[in-house]
C-alpha cells in the first residue's frame, strides 16, 4: 500500500515567497473566521465529528475508479465536505487534510501550504457550498445536479488558482500552464462530480436527516450563495482570458508590479529591494528581505493571536 500524491498539491520551491505569503495571509484570515464561527455556532459534538470527517475525506480520496486509458478518477472532497458539514466546518476539515498530507506525506509543501489550502480547501468549499446553498429548498434531483456542477467547478477553480500562482511566481508561462491545468482537471473534475453526486444521493437515500433542515449542512447563511457565485464567475471569466488571451492578464500583473517580483528574487515587498539609507549593498538587500519577511510574519502572528483570543 502506498500513498499516491494528487496533482493539485504544489510542492515547496515552485511558488516564490511573495505569492506564498499572500496566500498564507488570505488562508489565515479565512481559517480564523472559520475557527471563530465554528466555536460560536457549533456544539461540542462538532469536534469529534470534524476530526473523524477529516479522516473520512482523507480515506475517501483513496477510493478510485478506472476511467479511460489507464487513468483513474478519485475524490478531492472539498465540495462534498462543505455540503455535508456546512462551509466553515468543511473548510477546517479540508485544512486539516491538506496539512497532514503536506506534513506527513510531503504531498504539497510547507511554505506553500497556504496556497494549497486556499486552492483545495477554501475555494472548493466556497463554490461547492455556495452553489448548493442556492438550491437548498429545491427537489433532491435539482440539488444533486447542482452539487455535481459545483463539484466540477470547484476542481476547476483549484486548478485555475494553482496555474495563476505558478505564473505569478515566475515558474510557468501563463497560457501553457492554464491550458494544461484546466484541460487535465476538466477530466478529473468529472470524476469528482460523479463521486460527489453518488455519495450525496447515497446519503439522501439512507440518512436524509443529515442534509435536511436543522442539520449542520443547513447552517451556512445566504451570504455563501454570493461567495459561491462570485468565485464561480471568476473561474468562468478568467479561464478563457488566461488561456486564450494571456496578454491582457500579463499586462495587469505587470502594472501591479507582480511579474517583476515573480521573475526576480522575491524580497521586493520593499521598493527597489534595498533600504535607501544603506544604499545598494548586499547587506541592504538582505535587511530589506528580512524586514519584509518579518512584516509578513507579524501579520500572520497578529491575526493568529487575535483569533486565538476569541477562541479561548
Amino acid at each position, binding site marked *: 500500500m502506498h500513498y499516491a500524491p494528487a496533482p493539485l498539491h504544489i510542492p515547496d520551491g515552485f511558488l516564490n515567497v511573495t505569492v506564498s505569503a499572500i496566500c498564507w495571509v488570505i488562508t489565515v484570515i479565512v481559517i480564523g473566521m472559520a475557527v471563530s464561527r465554528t466555536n460560536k455556532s457549533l456544539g461540542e459534538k462538532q469536534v469529534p465529528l470534524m476530526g473523524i470527517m477529516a479522516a473520512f475525506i482523507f480515506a475517501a480520496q483513496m477510493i478510485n475508479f478506472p476511467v479511460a486509458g489507464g487513468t483513474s478518477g478519485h475524490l478531492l472532497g472539498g465540495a462534498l465536505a462543505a455540503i455535508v458539514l456546512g462551509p466553515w466546518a468543511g473548510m477546517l476539515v479540508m485544512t486539516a487534510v491538506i496539512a497532514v498530507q503536506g506534513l506527513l506525506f510531503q504531498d504539497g509543501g510547507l511554505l506553500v501550504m497556504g496556497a494549497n489550502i486556499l486552492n483545495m480547501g477554501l475555494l472548493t468549499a466556497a463554490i461547492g457550498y455556495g452553489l448548493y446553498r442556492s438550491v437548498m429548498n429545491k427537489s433532491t434531483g435539482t440539488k444533486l445536479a447542482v452539487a455535481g456542477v459545483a463539484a466540477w467547478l470547484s476542481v476547476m477553480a483549484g486548478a485555475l488558482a494553482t496555474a495563476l500562482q505558478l505564473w505569478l511566481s515566475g515558474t510557468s508561462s501563463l497560457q501553457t500552464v492554464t491550458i494544461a491545468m484546466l484541460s487535465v482537471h476538466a477530466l478529473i473534475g468529472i470524476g469528482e462530480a460523479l463521486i460527489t453526486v453518488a455519495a450525496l444521493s447515497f446519503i439522501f437515500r439512507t440518512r436524509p436527516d443529515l442534509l435536511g433542515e436543522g442539520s449542520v449542512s443547513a447552517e451556512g447563511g445566504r451570504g455563501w450563495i454570493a461567495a459561491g457565485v462570485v468565485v464561480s464567475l471568476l473561474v468562468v471569466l478568467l479561464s478563457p482570458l488566461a488561456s486564450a488571451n494571456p496578454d491582457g492578464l500579463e499586462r495587469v500583473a505587470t502594472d501591479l508590479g507582480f511579474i517583476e517580483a515573480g521573475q526576480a528574487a522575491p524580497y521586493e515587498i520593499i521598493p527597489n529591494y534595498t533600504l535607501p539609507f544603506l544604499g545598494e549593498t548586499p547587506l541592504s538587500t538582505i535587511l530589506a528581505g528580512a524586514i519584509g519577511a518579518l512584516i509578513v510574519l507579524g501579520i500572520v502572528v497578529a491575526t*493568529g493571536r487575535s483569533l486565538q483570543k476569541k477562541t479561548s
Partner: protein
Amino acid sequence: MHFDAFDRYHDTGSFIHRLDPRVKVVVTVAYILSNALLPDGAWTAFGLAWLFLLFASALSNLGPGFTFKRSFIALPFALAAVTVLFSIPGSPLSTFHFLFWNLTITDMGLLRFVSIVVRSWLSVQMAILLVATTRFPDIVHALEHLRVPAILTTIIAFLYRYLFVLVDEVFRLLRAREARSAAAPGSRSGGSAAWRARVAGNMAGQLFLRSYERSDRVYNAMLARGYTGRLNTIHPHEMHRMDYIVTVLALFIILLFQLIGRI
C-alpha cells in the same frame, strides 16, 4: 491489518530524534523559506544548504540515502516549470522541434528551471527528515505550542488517529468490490465509467455514514470521560538548553546561506 506504510517515523534514538519537536518544525520551515528566498543560480548557497541537509541526516543516523531515496515525490511537478526553459529571454542554448513548435532553450531559462527544481528537491528532503525524526503526535504538540488554534490541532490529531481505522475500512470495501468484479471470458470487466463512478460514490457514501456514526460513539466516549466542550491538553514538551542552542545555531547558519547567496 496495519498500514505501517503510513508511518514516516524511523526511530534511531539519535540526537536529532531527541530534540524538542518545536526546534525541528521551526528549523525545517526556516530552511525551506531560505531556499525559496535564495536567488536563481546561487549555486554556492544551494550547495551549502545541501551540505546542511546531509549533516542533519548524518546526525539523525538514518543513513545517507534515506532522504535521497524518498526525494522524488515532488519531481513530477517539475513539469509545471518546464515552460520557463523557453519563455524567459536570454541567449539561446539549443533549439529543437517539438510537434509543430520550434522551441529554444535559453541560458536564463535553464538557470531558472534548475533553480526551481533544486529548491524543491532540497526542501522536500528537509520535510522528509522532519517526519522521519519526529513522531507525528509530537509535531501536533509543536503546532499547539506554536499557537495554532486548538480546534485545528485537535482535528489534525483525530485525523491522524482515525486515518488508520478508516483506511482499513476503505481497503475492506475495495477488496469486496474486487472480489465481485469478475469478467466473463473475452469481455471487459466492469460497466461504463459512470457506472464505476457510481459504485465508487456509493462506497464513499457508505464510508461517510460509518464515519458519522463512529463520531457519535467517540463523542459518547469523550462525554463518559468528562468532556464538556472544552479540550484540555497537557503539554509534555519542555525546551532544554540544548534545544535553544541548536535553534539559534541552525537559524544563524541558514541566515549565512542568504548572505552567501547574495554576494
